[in-house]
């Protein structure tokens, strides 16, 4: 017997299949339990789709230089406080609770080798649907993602001792105690000097009002950073103020400490470039520290330069859409080739 294919029969069959599918979904017979895991074939299919997606998208949408190993300490601190509970870390097992997820988070000490830097960058930046892997917790911070790529790349060969040194007190899983000072100190150091890292600002000696305002801006997302956003969001307003005061009281950066060398940088810092409508840095960040602005004398040059570049924003954005707040406007008026010299001059390096 032969069944003749007619349009009517095809349409009726398709509608029938769709109705059966909907009926199955409606009935609740499908088991969404994480405890039951996937069938092997489902597991293979889902991973196959995910790998293809990451490979294709990473090839087209990630920066060529997707890794930056100049700031492993801040990446390690963030990894310890936000990633290790699922992925584990050298000498640290993932939480049993997190391993009971479907799918369980991969062990990065093995798994990281399977991905290129650009693929890791893409996964960290965007997260993975249906897997529990979240996207990066901040917009416009490729620098943070790149540092995390470099850190994850090192995980397979990292010893527990190396990990503990990098992550500092964050590796111990402390924080709630001691007014959360320990979790700050994990990156910024117990002396507030930033553990010698270029990307971690020195907090010791900073204007306390500025520190408290920065923590609040991180907590509300006004200032974007996954690392600091996560840390600040867990603090109460009182804790923020107390931590700001504690770090500000330490000896560290101080007004008037910067200033050495480069005449062109000195011109910008001390007098500005009136013909470019660039006011002197000193008109707000004065050498006496009497004004309502952060202290930048003696701050890390890498950090200052990075901040200035971040404020300048993308060249491609039209003027009317650029950020009109104080420092973005001023940073855009600094000649591009003077950013490094100005940062070094202020740092006194």
């Amino acid at each position: 017997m032969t069944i003749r294919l007619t349009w009517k029969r095809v349409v009726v069959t398709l509608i029938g299949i769709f109705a059966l599918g909907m009926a199955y979904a409606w009935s609740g017979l499908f088991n969404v339990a994480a405890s039951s895991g996937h069938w092997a074939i489902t597991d293979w299919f889902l991973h196959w789709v995910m790998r293809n997606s990451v490979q294709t998208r990473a090839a087209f949408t990630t920066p060529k230089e997707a890794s930056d190993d100049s700031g492993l300490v801040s990446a390690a601190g963030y990894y310890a406080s936000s990633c290790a509970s699922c992925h584990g870390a050298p000498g640290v097992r993932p939480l049993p609770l997190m391993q009971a997820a479907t799918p369980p988070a991969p062990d990065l000490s093995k798994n990281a080798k399977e991905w290129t830097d650009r693929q890791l960058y893409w996964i960290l930046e965007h997260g993975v649907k249906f897997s529990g892997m979240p996207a990066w917790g901040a917009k416009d911070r490729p620098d943070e993602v790149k540092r995390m790529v470099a850190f994850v790349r090192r995980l397979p060969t990292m010893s527990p001792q190396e990990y503990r040194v990098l992550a500092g007190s964050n590796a111990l899983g402390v924080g709630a105690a001691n007014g959360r000072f320990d979790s700050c100190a994990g990156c910024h150091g117990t002396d507030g000097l930033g553990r010698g890292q270029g990307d971690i600002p020195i907090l010791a000696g900073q204007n306390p009002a500025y520190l408290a305002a920065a923590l609040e801006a991180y907590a509300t997302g006004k200032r974007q950073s996954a690392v600091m956003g996560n840390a600040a969001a867990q603090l109460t307003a009182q804790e923020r103020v107390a931590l700001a005061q504690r770090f500000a009281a330490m000896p560290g950066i101080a007004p008037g400490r910067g200033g050495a060398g480069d005449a062109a940088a000195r011109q910008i810092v001390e007098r500005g470039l009136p013909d470019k409508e660039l006011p002197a840095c000193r008109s707000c960040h004065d050498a006496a520290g009497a004004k309502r602005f952060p202290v930048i004398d003696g701050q890390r040059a890498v950090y200052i330069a990075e901040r200035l570049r971040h404020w300048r924003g993308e060249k491609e954005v039209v003027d009317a859409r650029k950020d009109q707040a104080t420092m973005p406007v001023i940073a855009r008026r600094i000649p591009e080739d003077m950013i490094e010299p100005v940062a070094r001059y202020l740092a006194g390096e």
Partner: protein
Amino acid sequence: MRRIRSSVGAAALLSLGACNRHQSALSVFGEEAATVRHLTIVMLIGAVIIAAGVAGLMIAAVRAPEGRLTLSGGMRMVGWLGGVLPVVVLLALLLYSLPSMRPLPVGANDLRIAVQGEQFWWRVRYQPPGSPPLLTANEIRIPVGRTVQFDLTAGDVIHSFWIPGLAGKMDMIPGRTNRLVVRATKVGVFRGVCTEFCGLSHALMAFDVVAMEPAAFDAWLANERRPAAPAAGTAPGAQAFAANGCAGCHAIAGTPAAGLIGPDLTHIGSRASLGAGTTRMTREALVRFIKDAPSVKPGARMPAYPQLSREDAQAIAAYLESLK
């Protein structure tokens, strides 16, 4: 028909916007503008007469019986009315208007005012003969009856300087100084504008023009040379002004503030408008401008200050208001 009538009405209403005494080439308070207005009226009357003549000829041509005009008669008419008459009329008009193109004579002892167009404000420097220059911004005062020379230039892009009631417009071009000589004839408060598109807030780039009796002008100029407020430096607003780094761009004579990037604020409280003719000078307008100038004037070179506390902004505004 009704739609046409209402749209004509709307257009007529729009044109009513030109009916004001402050910013109008018809509301004249200077010799240059009087000449321009005179020329305009003469040309308008002439144009009406010529248009009426042309219309009459057309009607006559349509109504004339066939064969009224021979070919040679028609050619003669075109030659006289279309060739000779326009040459005579235009030549007469040229000879009549040439004298009005001559600039007013200006002597070494006349007041010179250098005005530099900036995005989107006016840097004004009074240079009275025999005394040091005086820097101010966004308001121009001139003595009635005295010759004044404007030296016009621009700091960033091309602007154009036009006080419709005083004189014709003159371009302000970076790296070049254009001269405009004027003489005011009437006391009053008028308005000038930028008439060359210069950026996002071009339409918000204006200034007040105050024509004063010579004696009052001299007294004003002398007062302008004095620091504005005796309280300068001790008021809470003065401290907030200093603590928030305003002096990086702005100057207030008699205080350490000496920035030349933005407008001079020495006597800002005495100006009628804020932000180069953008809003009236009120406390609220000052607060808003200080906190977020780009929201008042898109593209303004002054950044926003989201970190500035409301108290500081209000103290600074009160302080600026007191600088008379």
